[in-house]
């Protein structure tokens, strides 16, 4: 009965994000970790790309697509890194990597010719670029102008009504 009643209170929630990508990282306590990719529906994210990126220069330390079981067990890198689940356009999840048992060895740095940009979670957007600033400024100006014009014309109409009554 309680279950029945409590479900009725779920009226407006929960189903807004039916198909979100989720990444789970489990420390196996033997300097390896298991990375699993799933959808919020429980379906495994087979073929989604797992990438380990070095934090100091963006070097790709490891890269492989999830196999049929949706999980990968890999060795934990010795240098600081982040784990990226690349689920295609607009679906990138980034999490900080688990440290090995003895901690990160900061002398161990993978050398690459040119530092690369680190992947970011695909949720944030640069909201304050030039077009936003210009367009929002014009919008505010138009709103102020609308209020002014509306007040001016309303006063004019009221004057006309008063004059017509006289």
């Amino acid at each position, binding site marked *: 009965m309680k*279950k*029945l009643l409590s*479900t*009725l209170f*779920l*009226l*407006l*929630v*929960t*189903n*807004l994000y*039916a*198909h979100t990508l989720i990444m789970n990282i489990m420390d196996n306590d033997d300097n390896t970790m298991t990375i699993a990719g799933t959808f919020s*529906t*429980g379906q495994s*994210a*087979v*073929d*989604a*790309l797992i990438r380990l990126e070095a934090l100091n220069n963006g070097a790709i330390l490891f*890269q492989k*697509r999830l196999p*049929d079981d949706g999980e990968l067990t890999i060795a934990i890198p010795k240098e600081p890194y982040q784990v990226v689940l*690349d*689920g*295609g*356009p607009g*679906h990138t999840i980034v999490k900080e990597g688990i440290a090995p048992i003895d901690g990160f060895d900061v002398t161990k740095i993978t050398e690459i010719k040119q530092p690369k940009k680190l992947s970011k979670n695909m949720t944030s957007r640069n909201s304050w*670029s*030039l*077009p*936003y600033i*210009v*367009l929002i400024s*014009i*919008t505010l100006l*138009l*709103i102020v*102008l*609308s209020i002014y*014009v*509306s007040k001016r*014309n*309303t006063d*004019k*109409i009221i004057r*006309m*009504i008063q004059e*017509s009554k006289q």
Partner: protein
Amino acid sequence: MKETTIFLKQRLQRVHVAAGITFSLVMYLAVFFGIFAILLPYIQVWEKPSRHIEYMDVTKIDYATMIDPVISDPNFPTNNIQITLPGYQHDPILKVSHQFVEPVYFDPNTKEQINNEGDQSQLAKFLNHMHYGRPLKTFGYLIFGFVAVGGLFLIIGGLILVIMIKYNNNAKKPISRFSKLHRKILTWVFPPFIIITLTGALMNIGYTASAPMTYLVSKGETHRIFDLTSPILFPPIQNVEKQNISADMLPIGELIQKASTINPAIDFQKITLINWKDISAQVKIEGYNPYMPFLNGISNKPSITLSAVDGSLIRQHKVMDKHWSGLFFDSMYFLHFLFGVDTFTRLLIATIMSVSAFGLGFGVLLWLEKKAKKFPRNIPFYHWMAKLSLSVIIGVLPATALLFAMQWTLPFDLKDRFIWQEGIFFVSWLATFTWSLYRINSYQAAKEFLKLAGVLFILSPIFHYINSDFSLIQLWYQGLVQIVSVDIGLMIFGILLLIVGFRLPQKNNEIQKFWSKDL
């Protein structure tokens, strides 16, 4: 008893008017942008330079040259690769895609990879988003969803009113003219309108609120509706065990021909490659059966699965193989999505929706005319709802026309191109509100908006010709009929708006005569 009936009619009328004016503007926007959404396949081809290419017969394309380098890339997923065939949604390109990667686009004529404009060109997508409130995200979905329910409320109430009340159809005054047009139009268009609105409400709020229902009917197994319905409506591709033995694949063109022989009624649209290059490889070729409208195209996609090694038939899914709930689902959604339908059907539905937009507009005019009666005769009618309605219903026309004009004037490599385009659209639309408030005479403002919209719509195809290096003749001779039709459509629409803009009266006595005479 007589008094009860009078009160009932009064209440019905009151509730219809109150709900009508509350929901009218958002409902109009859903219908207005919905008309552009119906024409989305044509607009999305018109807007992109990369789509100004000739259509190819899907059985004569050299798929291997394009697909093999893509799927041989070790970073590309290995299974369930989807190929979208040229002609799907009138798009002439070949697309190789997978859930977890950016699609790769090819010109099937030259077999070269093309640079898809992507986020830089989103005109058709944006117009579709405006149709269901997406720019405002969850808030927009909810508002448009509730308005759709309001629309259903109004249709049912309106039909009961028309049955119960003996309306005067003389139409000698503007009020009676607006009332007659509002009733007549919506009485005729309500059947498709009610089905389209119902499915719209379901998409925007029906699924969102389905958690408790799903939990109860599944006896606590799940609260996600898609967990319950996906196996029936959108069953996943059956897992085929890979043998890890390489094998030569039959050419895809040949496989499509074999599929056409098995079921010639299907217009093939997409191919899924399963275990490609392995001895267990299969191709699932799915499409739409135009001879069975209403029963397929949405969740029900007839398909043929063949062995990619020898072309033998593994599985076939015909239209009537679908479970009755899937057939019902498709029949309800058919009018809303119109997937796979021909141009004539699209234009017919677009015309019906345009007429219903007029029906909604006359309802608003009726309400405003009743409010205007309270103003003294020689005082101009200046009401916030009149100005808001003017900018939403008429002001949206020059703003949308500007969108089309900007499509072929803004450089495609401009940084944040779409943000500029989208932003200028909204700012210009807001500017029409400011102008509506500034111009005391609403008819004068309406004429100005219509003329501006007309000019901009006429200029849009001209900008297209100048900046695309294609003329109307060239497009026609190269068989790019879809693109030509958009240019011609924009031109005709612009001319119509100009004509209406010039003919619409401005002075009070002329306005009264205009709406009272036999139109």
